[in-house]
């Protein structure tokens, strides 16, 4: 099972890489090649070539480190990718087919579920206005301890 997946992955990557090599060389292939917007700053968090092949491993590793151990180094964080790679037009990494992550994934036929939960645009932390209770509207409470939640 794993070895088939590995082989498929190599194929998918080879496809994406071949496409990009051709794009770099100015060759025309039969399909529209992904044109990737350059990220912010001078360079990525690892070697560009390494990132092309291995970003998914870095993300999955960092995900477990953060989730289970509370390790919050910014380097391989998904939030970091979004901050540097959000597109100029949409402000997002995956709002349109031209945006950084989706452009390449569409080309390589990769579909992610990450954006169901993770924001595709950089954002700031929510600000908490000092609340005031005077006259604050109270939403109806669902405070029964029995039954209810589905």
């Amino acid at each position, binding site marked *: 099972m794993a070895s088939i997946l590995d082989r498929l992955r190599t194929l998918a990557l080879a496809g994406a890489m071949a496409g990009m090599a051709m794009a770099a060389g100015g060759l025309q292939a039969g399909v529209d090649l992904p044109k990737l917007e350059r990220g912010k700053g001078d360079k990525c968090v690892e070697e560009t070539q390494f990132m092309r092949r291995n970003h998914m491993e870095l993300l999955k590793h960092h995900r477990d480190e953060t989730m289970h151990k509370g*390790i919050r180094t910014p380097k391989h964080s998904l939030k970091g990718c979004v901050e540097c790679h959000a597109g100029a037009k949409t402000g997002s990494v995956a709002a349109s087919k031209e945006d950084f992550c989706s452009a390449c994934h569409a080309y390589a036929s990769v579909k992610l579920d990450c954006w169901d939960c993770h924001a595709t*645009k950089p954002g700031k*932390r*929510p600000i*908490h206005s000092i*609340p005031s209770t005077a006259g604050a509207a109270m939403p109806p409470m669902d405070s029964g301890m029995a039954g*209810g939640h589905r």
Partner: protein
Amino acid sequence: MSEQMNHPQSDQDQADRRNFLKASAAAAGLTVAPGVLLYGIAHSRPEDQAVSDKVRWGMLIDTTKCAADCNACVTACNTENALEGRTGPQDSQWIRKVSIKNLQTGAEHHLPMPCQHCEHPPCVDVCPTGASFKRADGIVLVDRHICIGCRYCMMACPYKARSFVHEPLTEQNPEVPRGKGCVESCTFCVQRVDRDETPACVEACTADGHMAMLFGDLNDPESEIAKALKGQRTTEIRADLRLNTGVRYQGI
């Protein structure tokens, strides 16, 4: 996706504030505005270091200070975690205001109910995939990369603390990913705790002057919360279940 999070404060301000808070966290209490004291947490953990069981996060809620007409903790939770703020049976509520009345005496009490962050969490016991887990520092979480949405944990929780996301979501806080098909609940604002801040509900209750909620390390005898627990009579809700909850109450 996150327009609602945009506000005039710059990243630089945020960073400065964070560093300031970090630098002063070792002090017992810290004044952020006249009359507002934030109790600092004396455990600065480097961001590349894993959480450890030397710390156990807990919360003490004084129901005698919790005002009937105040909803500040709930509102702050909704803002921090980008919850919709609706209270129907299928809506996500990570903290609820509960009112109880003694029918004999007429005495009324109000209290916020977040996840109780049990030492022996029933949600973790029943989870078939290992998605429900307890972090070494006692925070009970759902790893939503593993959750299959079966909702056994919701049935197992005696506190009705968990919610299931039924509809696709947008406008999530980048720091608090949430989405359809998974169970979720109070995380003690883990993204804030990991940078030495208190949960949003506690901050709001304190800023609003009620001081009904105290957050800190139960394992540190010098912490405010450990001292309060040592000096006063406090209650675990459903203590009969022997779950050793991280959230304790006073006045009920």
